[in-house]
């Protein structure tokens, strides 16, 4: 990259070009085989494992000068992880950053899919802690690879069976296993199962990077993504019995926020950008005080 660089002393987007090519090859292979975990030579990144080293490497490999980057952590644009990764790329790649889902071309996410519908041309990069959906059922990596290769996924249903036997319903609420394009079973990273339906037939490209585990996988645009279930216990997403306290949104994923030590709490949109956009449009929830201030 010959473009003018900020004074970081690093190559564009931190990683050297050879590494980026290696990661891009893994990404291309992952797109060619939807849901298949492609090994890649994960690098040490200037942040600890568990802070999104896989997602950061994928983002670094696909980022171009004209991209607009958004980073969210649990749906929020302003938590430590999101802020530091956004600042990292603003500094090392000098790309434009945004909190607006619609304006972003690359969205790196930890544990949420934005509420605003994604569109063609966007790339959603997931930070993945454990890419192997069968890990806790079958500890041997040699064996899980066999199971994937032969599409033997009976074991995944054993886990769901255990859920129902213990709790009366499928109690897995995050990292809910999905079948991609009728073939590979995939861990959608610890997103709430609320977001699983958004992965299905999504117009955006979805890339998954696991840094510690050295795996990349992908869901190409408009790919069938089916959440596993039983005929008599079909897949259901979480529902909330109240709208967002700030913007009044319904049918969105809510976070519980403790207000004091006397049991005060409210439920607000986990997607902060979505919530702010709605409040800017004049939507008000029951606990909405902040937005009147914002409007004043």
């Amino acid at each position, binding site marked *: 990259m010959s473009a003018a660089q900020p004074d970081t002393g690093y190559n564009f987007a931190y990683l050297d070009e050879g590494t980026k090519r290696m990661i891009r090859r893994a990404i291309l292979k992952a797109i060619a085989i939807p849901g298949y975990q492609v090994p890649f030579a994960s690098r040490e990144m200037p942040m600890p494992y568990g802070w999104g080293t896989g997602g950061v490497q994928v983002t670094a490999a696909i980022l171009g000068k004209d991209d607009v980057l958004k980073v969210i952590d649990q749906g929020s644009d302003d938590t430590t992880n999101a802020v530091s990764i956004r600042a990292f790329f603003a500094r090392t790649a000098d790309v434009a950053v945004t909190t607006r889902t619609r304006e972003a071309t690359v969205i790196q996410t930890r544990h949420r899919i934005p509420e605003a519908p994604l569109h063609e041309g966007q790339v959603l990069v997931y930070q993945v802690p454990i890419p192997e959906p069968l890990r806790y*059922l079958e500890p041997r990596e040699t064996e899980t690879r066999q199971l994937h290769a*032969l599409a033997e996924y*009976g*074991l995944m249903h*054993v886990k769901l069976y*255990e859920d129902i036997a*213990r709790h009366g319903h499928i109690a897995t609420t995050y990292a809910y296993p999905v079948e991609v394009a009728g073939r590979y079973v995939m861990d959608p990273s610890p997103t709430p199962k609320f977001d699983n339906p958004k992965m299905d037939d999504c117009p955006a490209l979805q890339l998954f990077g696991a840094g510690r585990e050295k795996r990349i996988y992908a869901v190409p645009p408009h790919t069938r993504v089916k959440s596993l279930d039983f005929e008599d216990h079909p897949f259901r997403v979480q529902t909330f019995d109240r709208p967002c306290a700030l913007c009044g949104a319904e049918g969105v994923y809510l976070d519980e926020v403790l207000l004091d030590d006397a049991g005060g709490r409210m439920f607000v949109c986990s997607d902060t950008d979505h919530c702010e956009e709605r409040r800017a449009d004049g939507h008000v929830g029951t606990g909405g005080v902040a937005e009147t201030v914002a409007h004043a």
Partner: protein
Amino acid sequence: MSAPLLQARGLAKHYGARTACADVSFDLDPGEVLAIVGESGSGKSTLLSLIATELAPESGSVSYRMRDGVVRDLSHLSEAERRALMRTDWGFVRQDAAKGLRMAVSAGGNVGERLMGAGARHYGNIRGTALDWLAKVEIAADRIDDPPTRFSGGMRQRLQIARNLVTRPRLVLMDEPTSGLDVSVQARLLDLIRGLVAELGLAVVIVTHDLAVARLLSHRVMVMRAGRVIETGLTDQVLDDPAEPYTQLLVSSVLAA
């Protein structure tokens, strides 16, 4: 009864210079129970692993008459076919139940795993079938959600049997299924196995060092010593009128109760 269900021909396996198995051949008919007896280290378990395709023989072959009637050499099966055969038409009851069961998964999940592996996707039906099988192996229905870690040794073995039989296999391999259990539990387990074998018409290859087990369950006996089959024949014939000095020694060394 036409062709044999299972045919082993000239099986051999060495561990370094030591012979674990040499020139072992036998036929097994549908519904037939074959006991392989011998002292520890005689190659019984190696032979069972060779039959189960867990070990590759240095020479010789094992062929099996599949459900469609075609006889296939097991070493020529693809990995997918081999695994499908093992989890549908075959069963393997292991000496150590912890190796044959998923210890962290409930009894119902253990029994249901093969069904789900075969594509069952209806929770109610899977659970119903699991309950049926638990009843068949005399495990109380209210234990269905307990993991096998909370089961006694005898119950674990019975659960293993249920887990293996749920897909109605035609051949079951058993490796010392009663060892490590106390005598009364052994007797109940043997009784149960005998009943199920007769009811389902199972073919069984059972490895045991306990001649009483062989006498109770098997139609035929194969006596092994130092990796070779030294005597084979009908169970009562071999045990009551052993021809080989070694077999005579084995039979005479059984403690009279």
